[in-house]
Protein backbone atom coordinates (compact mmCIF):
# COMPACT_ATOMS: atom_id res chain seq x y z
CA UNK A 1 0.00 0.00 0.00
CA UNK A 2 1.36 3.40 -0.93
CA UNK A 3 1.60 6.16 1.64
CA UNK A 4 -0.64 8.99 0.44
CA UNK A 5 0.44 12.57 -0.07
CA UNK A 6 4.19 12.04 -0.02
CA UNK A 7 4.52 14.32 -3.03
CA UNK A 8 0.98 15.19 -3.96
CA UNK A 9 -0.51 18.13 -2.09
CA UNK A 10 -3.56 17.58 0.09
CA UNK A 11 -6.55 19.68 -0.85
CA UNK A 12 -7.25 20.84 2.71
CA UNK A 13 -3.73 21.82 3.78
CA UNK A 14 -2.24 22.45 0.34
CA UNK A 15 0.88 20.65 1.60
CA UNK A 16 2.33 17.16 1.45
CA UNK A 17 1.77 15.25 4.68
CA UNK A 18 5.35 15.09 5.95
CA UNK A 19 5.56 18.87 5.94
CA UNK A 20 2.44 19.21 8.07
CA UNK A 21 3.89 16.55 10.35
CA UNK A 22 7.26 18.21 10.82
CA UNK A 23 5.68 21.59 11.57
CA UNK A 24 3.39 20.04 14.19
CA UNK A 25 6.45 18.36 15.70
CA UNK A 26 8.39 21.63 15.66
CA UNK A 27 5.44 23.33 17.38
CA UNK A 28 5.76 20.80 20.22
CA UNK A 29 9.51 21.41 20.28
CA UNK A 30 8.92 25.15 20.69
CA UNK A 31 6.91 24.39 23.81
CA UNK A 32 9.54 21.95 25.12
CA UNK A 33 12.39 24.44 24.83
CA UNK A 34 10.03 27.27 25.84
CA UNK A 35 9.36 25.51 29.15
CA UNK A 36 13.09 25.13 29.77
CA UNK A 37 13.76 28.75 28.84
CA UNK A 38 11.06 29.88 31.26
CA UNK A 39 12.70 27.68 33.93
CA UNK A 40 15.99 29.43 33.18
CA UNK A 41 14.36 32.85 33.57
CA UNK A 42 12.81 31.92 36.92
CA UNK A 43 16.02 30.38 38.24
CA UNK A 44 18.02 33.39 37.16
CA UNK A 45 15.64 35.99 38.53
CA UNK A 46 15.16 33.96 41.69
CA UNK A 47 18.89 33.65 42.37
CA UNK A 48 20.05 35.78 45.31
CA UNK A 49 21.81 38.94 44.06
CA UNK A 50 25.41 38.40 42.99
CA UNK A 51 25.27 34.61 43.01
CA UNK A 52 24.54 33.92 39.35
CA UNK A 53 27.86 32.92 37.75
CA UNK A 54 29.38 34.94 34.92
CA UNK A 55 32.31 34.13 32.71
CA UNK A 56 32.48 30.40 33.37
CA UNK A 57 31.87 29.46 29.75
CA UNK A 58 34.39 29.90 26.98
CA UNK A 59 32.96 32.59 24.69
CA UNK A 60 35.38 32.17 21.74
CA UNK A 61 34.56 28.45 21.61
CA UNK A 62 30.83 29.17 21.90
CA UNK A 63 31.11 31.75 19.13
CA UNK A 64 32.98 29.31 16.91
CA UNK A 65 30.30 26.68 17.52
CA UNK A 66 27.65 29.24 16.54
CA UNK A 67 29.47 29.79 13.24
CA UNK A 68 29.64 26.03 12.73
CA UNK A 69 25.89 25.65 13.23
CA UNK A 70 25.04 28.63 11.00
CA UNK A 71 27.28 27.18 8.28
CA UNK A 72 25.47 23.85 8.56
CA UNK A 73 22.15 25.66 8.20
CA UNK A 74 23.07 27.18 4.86
CA UNK A 75 24.54 23.92 3.55
CA UNK A 76 21.28 22.14 4.41
CA UNK A 77 19.20 24.64 2.46
CA UNK A 78 21.74 24.64 -0.39
CA UNK A 79 21.51 20.83 -0.52
CA UNK A 80 17.74 21.08 -0.88
CA UNK A 81 18.06 23.79 -3.55
CA UNK A 82 20.57 21.59 -5.43
CA UNK A 83 18.02 18.77 -5.56
CA UNK A 84 15.35 21.20 -6.75
CA UNK A 85 17.72 22.09 -9.58
CA UNK A 86 18.35 18.39 -10.25
CA UNK A 87 21.98 18.44 -9.17
CA UNK A 88 22.46 15.34 -7.03
CA UNK A 89 26.26 15.74 -6.88
CA UNK A 90 26.00 19.17 -5.28
CA UNK A 91 23.43 17.83 -2.85
CA UNK A 92 25.93 15.18 -1.71
CA UNK A 93 28.64 17.81 -1.37
CA UNK A 94 26.57 20.24 0.71
CA UNK A 95 25.13 17.56 2.99
CA UNK A 96 28.62 16.16 3.56
CA UNK A 97 29.61 19.61 4.87
CA UNK A 98 26.46 19.62 7.04
CA UNK A 99 27.46 16.29 8.56
CA UNK A 100 31.00 17.52 9.19
CA UNK A 101 29.58 20.62 10.88
CA UNK A 102 27.32 18.46 13.07
CA UNK A 103 30.29 16.30 14.02
CA UNK A 104 32.37 19.42 14.66
CA UNK A 105 29.67 20.98 16.84
CA UNK A 106 29.30 17.86 18.97
CA UNK A 107 33.07 17.43 19.26
CA UNK A 108 33.51 21.01 20.45
CA UNK A 109 30.62 20.59 22.89
CA UNK A 110 32.26 17.43 24.23
CA UNK A 111 35.49 19.37 24.73
CA UNK A 112 33.56 22.09 26.58
CA UNK A 113 31.83 19.54 28.80
CA UNK A 114 35.16 17.86 29.63
CA UNK A 115 36.56 21.25 30.60
CA UNK A 116 33.70 21.67 33.07
CA UNK A 117 34.02 18.17 34.52
CA UNK A 118 37.64 18.87 35.61
CA UNK A 119 37.00 22.45 36.80
CA UNK A 120 36.17 22.79 40.50
CA UNK A 121 34.88 25.09 43.16
CA UNK A 122 36.04 24.79 46.76
CA UNK A 123 34.00 26.22 49.64
CA UNK A 124 36.25 26.48 52.69
CA UNK A 125 35.16 26.40 56.30
CA UNK A 126 36.37 29.98 56.78
CA UNK A 127 33.85 31.18 54.20
CA UNK A 128 36.28 31.72 51.30
CA UNK A 129 35.54 30.22 47.92
CA UNK A 130 37.76 29.57 44.96
CA UNK A 131 37.51 27.99 41.55
CA UNK A 132 40.29 26.16 39.76
CA UNK A 133 41.78 22.78 39.01
CA UNK A 134 42.86 19.87 41.18
CA UNK A 135 46.27 18.39 40.42
CA UNK A 136 45.93 15.55 37.92
CA UNK A 137 42.63 16.96 36.59
CA UNK A 138 40.37 14.26 38.06
CA UNK A 139 36.75 14.08 36.85
CA UNK A 140 33.61 14.54 38.94
CA UNK A 141 35.18 14.76 42.41
CA UNK A 142 32.97 16.00 45.22
CA UNK A 143 32.98 16.39 48.99
CA UNK A 144 31.98 12.79 49.65
CA UNK A 145 34.76 11.45 47.42
CA UNK A 146 37.34 13.41 49.42
CA UNK A 147 36.15 11.58 52.51
CA UNK A 148 35.95 8.21 50.75
CA UNK A 149 39.49 8.57 49.42
CA UNK A 150 40.68 9.65 52.89
CA UNK A 151 42.81 12.41 51.37
CA UNK A 152 44.66 14.66 53.79
CA UNK A 153 44.77 17.53 51.30
CA UNK A 154 44.37 18.47 47.65
CA UNK A 155 46.73 20.44 45.44
CA UNK A 156 44.63 23.21 43.94
CA UNK A 157 45.49 25.73 41.21
CA UNK A 158 43.02 28.55 41.80
CA UNK A 159 41.67 30.77 39.02
CA UNK A 160 42.70 34.41 39.06
CA UNK A 161 39.07 35.50 39.48
CA UNK A 162 36.07 34.01 41.18
CA UNK A 163 32.78 34.33 39.33
CA UNK A 164 31.10 36.03 42.28
CA UNK A 165 33.59 38.91 42.09
CA UNK A 166 32.43 42.06 40.26
CA UNK A 167 32.13 41.40 36.58
CA UNK A 168 34.87 42.72 34.31
CA UNK A 169 33.31 43.07 30.89
CA UNK A 170 35.16 41.18 28.21
CA UNK A 171 37.90 40.08 30.59
CA UNK A 172 36.52 36.59 31.19
CA UNK A 173 35.66 36.22 27.54
CA UNK A 174 39.19 35.37 26.58
CA UNK A 175 39.83 32.28 28.61
CA UNK A 176 36.55 31.48 30.31
CA UNK A 177 38.20 31.69 33.71
CA UNK A 178 41.30 33.73 33.06
CA UNK A 179 44.53 32.05 34.12
CA UNK A 180 45.77 30.31 37.26
CA UNK A 181 47.71 31.35 40.32
CA UNK A 182 50.26 29.13 42.05
CA UNK A 183 49.14 25.70 43.21
CA UNK A 184 48.31 25.55 46.90
CA UNK A 185 47.72 22.70 49.30
CA UNK A 186 44.26 22.78 50.87
CA UNK A 187 43.80 20.46 53.85
CA UNK A 188 40.71 18.29 53.43
CA UNK A 189 39.65 19.30 56.94
CA UNK A 190 39.35 22.94 55.72
CA UNK A 191 37.03 22.04 52.87
CA UNK A 192 33.34 22.45 53.54
CA UNK A 193 32.25 21.58 50.02
CA UNK A 194 33.91 20.54 46.78
CA UNK A 195 32.14 20.29 43.45
CA UNK A 196 33.11 20.08 39.81
CA UNK A 197 31.16 22.28 37.38
CA UNK A 198 28.45 19.68 37.00
CA UNK A 199 24.65 20.01 37.43
CA UNK A 200 25.00 19.38 41.19
CA UNK A 201 27.23 22.46 41.50
CA UNK A 202 24.46 25.05 41.17
CA UNK A 203 21.17 25.85 39.47
CA UNK A 204 23.23 27.66 36.81
CA UNK A 205 25.01 24.47 35.77
CA UNK A 206 21.81 22.49 36.27
CA UNK A 207 19.98 24.52 33.65
CA UNK A 208 23.13 24.88 31.47
CA UNK A 209 23.60 21.13 31.14
CA UNK A 210 19.86 20.48 30.73
CA UNK A 211 19.51 22.98 27.90
CA UNK A 212 22.75 22.26 26.07
CA UNK A 213 22.54 18.47 26.44
CA UNK A 214 18.97 18.45 25.12
CA UNK A 215 20.10 20.65 22.25
CA UNK A 216 23.10 18.38 21.57
CA UNK A 217 20.75 15.39 21.48
CA UNK A 218 18.74 17.20 18.82
CA UNK A 219 21.93 17.84 16.83
CA UNK A 220 22.81 14.16 17.15
CA UNK A 221 19.32 13.03 16.09
CA UNK A 222 19.23 15.45 13.18
CA UNK A 223 22.68 14.32 12.03
CA UNK A 224 21.55 10.68 12.12
CA UNK A 225 18.60 11.43 9.81
CA UNK A 226 20.66 13.61 7.49
CA UNK A 227 23.39 10.94 7.47
CA UNK A 228 20.87 8.25 6.54
CA UNK A 229 19.43 10.35 3.71
CA UNK A 230 22.96 11.18 2.55
CA UNK A 231 24.01 7.51 2.58
CA UNK A 232 21.68 4.52 2.18
CA UNK A 233 18.52 6.63 1.93
CA UNK A 234 19.86 8.53 -1.08
CA UNK A 235 18.97 5.72 -3.47
CA UNK A 236 15.41 7.03 -3.46
CA UNK A 237 16.64 9.86 -5.68
CA UNK A 238 16.74 7.37 -8.57
CA UNK A 239 13.27 5.94 -8.00
CA UNK A 240 11.28 8.89 -6.65
CA UNK A 241 13.27 12.15 -6.81
CA UNK A 242 10.39 14.40 -5.75
CA UNK A 243 9.67 12.40 -2.63
CA UNK A 244 13.38 12.31 -1.81
CA UNK A 245 13.60 16.10 -2.20
CA UNK A 246 10.66 16.46 0.18
CA UNK A 247 12.44 14.26 2.72
CA UNK A 248 15.46 16.53 2.50
CA UNK A 249 13.25 19.58 2.99
CA UNK A 250 11.64 18.06 6.08
CA UNK A 251 14.96 17.02 7.63
CA UNK A 252 16.26 20.49 6.79
CA UNK A 253 13.37 22.16 8.62
CA UNK A 254 14.28 20.20 11.74
CA UNK A 255 17.94 21.16 11.33
CA UNK A 256 17.09 24.86 11.01
CA UNK A 257 15.02 24.62 14.18
CA UNK A 258 18.04 23.20 16.01
CA UNK A 259 20.06 26.17 14.73
CA UNK A 260 17.32 28.53 15.81
CA UNK A 261 17.35 27.19 19.38
CA UNK A 262 21.12 27.68 19.55
CA UNK A 263 20.73 31.29 18.39
CA UNK A 264 18.92 31.95 21.68
CA UNK A 265 20.94 29.56 23.84
CA UNK A 266 24.28 31.12 22.99
CA UNK A 267 23.68 34.68 24.24
CA UNK A 268 21.53 33.54 27.16
CA UNK A 269 24.04 31.05 28.57
CA UNK A 270 27.38 32.45 27.42
CA UNK A 271 26.96 36.21 27.38
CA UNK A 272 24.23 37.44 29.73
Amino acid sequence: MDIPYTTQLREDTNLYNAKVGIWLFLASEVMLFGALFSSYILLRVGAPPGTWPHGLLNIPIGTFNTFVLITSSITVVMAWASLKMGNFGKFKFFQAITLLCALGFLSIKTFEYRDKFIHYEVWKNDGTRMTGHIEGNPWFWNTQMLKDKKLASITFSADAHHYAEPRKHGAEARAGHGGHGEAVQIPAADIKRLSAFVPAHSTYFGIYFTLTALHALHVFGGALVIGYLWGPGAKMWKTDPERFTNRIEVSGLFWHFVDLVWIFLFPVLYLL
Partner: protein
Amino acid sequence: MSDSHSHDHIAKHVRVYITVFVALLIGTLVTVGMYSVHFESVALTVAIAVIIASVKAFLVAGFFMHLVSEKRSIYTVLAVTGFFFAGLMALTIWAMHDFPDNTANTQQTFHTAPAPAPHVP
Protein backbone atom coordinates in the same frame (compact mmCIF):
# COMPACT_ATOMS: atom_id res chain seq x y z
CA MET B 1 7.06 27.45 -0.51
CA SER B 2 5.57 26.38 -3.80
CA ASP B 3 6.67 23.01 -5.09
CA SER B 4 6.74 24.15 -8.71
CA HIS B 5 9.99 26.04 -8.61
CA SER B 6 11.70 26.81 -11.82
CA HIS B 7 15.46 26.52 -12.04
CA ASP B 8 15.80 30.32 -12.19
CA HIS B 9 13.47 30.79 -9.26
CA ILE B 10 15.62 28.50 -7.11
CA ALA B 11 18.81 30.21 -8.28
CA LYS B 12 17.31 33.51 -7.10
CA HIS B 13 16.59 31.90 -3.74
CA VAL B 14 20.19 30.74 -3.46
CA ARG B 15 21.36 34.37 -3.61
CA VAL B 16 18.96 35.18 -0.77
CA TYR B 17 20.31 32.24 1.27
CA ILE B 18 23.86 33.49 0.89
CA THR B 19 22.82 37.01 1.93
CA VAL B 20 21.04 35.62 4.99
CA PHE B 21 24.08 33.49 5.84
CA VAL B 22 26.34 36.57 5.80
CA ALA B 23 23.79 38.50 7.89
CA LEU B 24 23.73 35.68 10.46
CA LEU B 25 27.52 35.71 10.73
CA ILE B 26 27.51 39.48 11.21
CA GLY B 27 24.68 39.16 13.75
CA THR B 28 26.76 36.67 15.75
CA LEU B 29 29.76 39.02 15.74
CA VAL B 30 27.53 41.91 16.86
CA THR B 31 26.11 39.74 19.67
CA VAL B 32 29.59 38.92 20.93
CA GLY B 33 30.73 42.52 20.40
CA MET B 34 27.88 43.78 22.58
CA TYR B 35 29.32 41.74 25.43
CA SER B 36 32.37 43.99 25.60
CA VAL B 37 30.16 47.09 25.80
CA HIS B 38 29.15 47.78 29.37
CA PHE B 39 25.57 48.94 29.87
CA GLU B 40 24.55 50.16 33.30
CA SER B 41 21.11 48.64 32.95
CA VAL B 42 20.87 44.84 33.04
CA ALA B 43 17.43 45.10 31.43
CA LEU B 44 18.93 47.02 28.49
CA THR B 45 21.70 44.41 28.07
CA VAL B 46 19.16 41.59 28.06
CA ALA B 47 16.83 43.49 25.70
CA ILE B 48 19.61 44.14 23.15
CA ALA B 49 20.77 40.50 23.25
CA VAL B 50 17.20 39.23 22.82
CA ILE B 51 16.51 41.66 19.96
CA ILE B 52 19.64 40.59 18.04
CA ALA B 53 18.81 36.91 18.65
CA SER B 54 15.22 37.52 17.49
CA VAL B 55 16.40 39.16 14.25
CA LYS B 56 18.70 36.20 13.60
CA ALA B 57 15.87 33.78 14.41
CA PHE B 58 13.59 35.64 11.98
CA LEU B 59 16.21 35.31 9.23
CA VAL B 60 16.55 31.55 9.80
CA ALA B 61 12.81 30.90 10.14
CA GLY B 62 11.78 33.35 7.43
CA PHE B 63 14.24 32.44 4.69
CA PHE B 64 15.94 29.12 5.45
CA MET B 65 12.64 27.62 6.66
CA HIS B 66 10.68 29.56 4.02
CA LEU B 67 8.19 30.98 6.49
CA VAL B 68 7.97 34.27 4.59
CA SER B 69 6.12 32.43 1.83
CA GLU B 70 4.45 29.47 3.51
CA LYS B 71 0.97 28.03 3.31
CA ARG B 72 -1.85 29.23 5.49
CA SER B 73 -2.19 25.92 7.34
CA ILE B 74 1.37 26.26 8.69
CA TYR B 75 0.73 29.84 9.79
CA THR B 76 -2.32 28.53 11.67
CA VAL B 77 -0.24 25.90 13.46
CA LEU B 78 2.37 28.51 14.36
CA ALA B 79 -0.23 31.02 15.51
CA VAL B 80 -1.55 28.48 18.02
CA THR B 81 2.03 27.70 19.10
CA GLY B 82 2.80 31.40 19.43
CA PHE B 83 -0.30 31.91 21.57
CA PHE B 84 0.68 29.19 24.02
CA PHE B 85 4.34 30.21 24.00
CA ALA B 86 3.36 33.79 24.79
CA GLY B 87 1.10 32.47 27.56
CA LEU B 88 3.96 30.42 28.99
CA MET B 89 6.26 33.45 29.02
CA ALA B 90 3.52 35.66 30.47
CA LEU B 91 3.04 33.18 33.31
CA THR B 92 6.80 33.18 33.84
CA ILE B 93 6.96 36.97 34.04
CA TRP B 94 3.89 36.99 36.26
CA ALA B 95 5.56 34.52 38.62
CA MET B 96 8.90 36.29 38.66
CA HIS B 97 8.47 37.96 42.00
CA ASP B 98 6.19 35.39 43.54
CA PHE B 99 8.63 33.06 45.26
CA PRO B 100 7.52 30.17 47.42
CA ASP B 101 7.86 30.72 51.17
CA ASN B 102 11.17 29.97 52.85
CA THR B 103 13.30 30.13 49.70
CA ALA B 104 16.44 32.24 49.46
CA ASN B 105 14.45 35.25 48.35
CA THR B 106 11.88 35.17 51.08
CA GLN B 107 13.99 34.16 54.04
CA GLN B 108 13.57 36.65 56.82
CA THR B 109 14.93 36.86 60.27
CA PHE B 110 12.10 36.59 62.67
CA HIS B 111 12.72 38.24 66.00
CA THR B 112 10.65 36.82 68.77
CA ALA B 113 9.24 39.36 71.11
CA PRO B 114 10.93 39.37 74.49
CA ALA B 115 9.07 37.42 77.05
CA PRO B 116 6.98 39.64 79.25
CA ALA B 117 8.50 40.36 82.54
CA PRO B 118 7.06 38.22 85.26
CA HIS B 119 4.25 39.93 86.98
CA VAL B 120 5.18 41.03 90.40
CA PRO B 121 2.19 41.83 92.52
